[in-house]
């Protein structure tokens, strides 16, 4: 992969980390709030669904994770295994796409 692309991946990973940092804290706070009064999915959703704000926050979270995680996993795989090159790039993109699809499905319930 050329130098320019590598730098853009670096920027994307740092920028997504910048977005994720406060969202992780919000997520931890949400978990503490959401489990009050019961731990089943239905009970938790009863306290969080129907909120555009929660939907927007978790939607942004999903997008940030879908950018951040594939770039990091690609780097780890390249360092720790013999796998590298175009097939790994494609696998990382597919992983990011999977995160987006699963994440959006989950977030849709909140809105």
């Amino acid at each position: 992969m050329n130098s320019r692309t590598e730098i853009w991946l670096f920027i994307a990973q740092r920028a997504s980390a910048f977005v994720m940092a406060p969202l992780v804290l919000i997520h931890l706070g949400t978990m503490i709030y959401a489990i009050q009064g019961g731990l089943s999915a239905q009970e938790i959703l009863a306290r969080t669904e129907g909120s555009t704000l929660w939907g927007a926050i978790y939607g942004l979270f999903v997008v940030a994770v879908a950018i951040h995680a594939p770039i990091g996993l690609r780097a780890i795989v390249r360092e720790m295994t013999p796998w590298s090159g175009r097939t790994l790039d494609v696998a990382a993109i597919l992983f990011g796409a999977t995160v987006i699809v699963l994440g959006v499905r989950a977030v849709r319930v909140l809105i």
Partner: protein
Amino acid sequence: MTEQATQRGDFVVEIWRGKDSGEFVSYRVPKRASQTILDVVSHVQRRLDPSLSYRFACRVGMCGSCAMTVNGVPRWTCRTHVDRVAKDGHIRIEPLRNLPVIRDLVVDMAPFFDKWQRATGQFIPSDSDNRQAFAQVEPDSRERQEADAGIECIGCAVCYSACDVVAWNSDYLGPAALNRVWTLVNDSRDGGRTEHLAAVAGDAGCHQCHSHQACMTYCPKDLNPTAAIAGLKRATTKSVLRGEL
């Protein structure tokens, strides 16, 4: 053996003999005052086993040729005192990590210096019009201070040996080459900023650094290649955002 050495006693040193396969061989060496690891290796080669291969030149911490792994840590052996590194009187000396072993304590430095070339570690003159005039370099400028901070590298490969990223990715340029490029990027006389930044930004370049800081921890000249690499990350990012790369 001198009387002084006899009075101080002997100690046993284990030295790697062989290439990729080989074994540690124990030698009994007389203790001396202010004895360095290089003194120990020289004693073994001159008095006990002339077939021992090792490399040194200046003996005073300038040439960077005598680096070895001592008790698991990469060090410049001419300036490393036995008293400071012996663990319970035990010393084990091996060749540097991350470089091919030629024989005994001698490693092939070619991959290390090849990466300086790949990283464009050479000065690139600016346009020809300015070559005739004396360059005006402001010593207190931020760029010159950044360059000065990394300029004293002696090319000993201690940082390269200490770097885990080099161990994981043999293509990684390594701390010394990247530190060298950072000094050039900050040199107002150098005209190859874009070439330098493009060369260090690829799959094996500065963005692969994990900031473990082993290079900084073990650099015998107290340089900080981790900071230089962080500087390159910032410089490449700015260049891409400005459309220069």
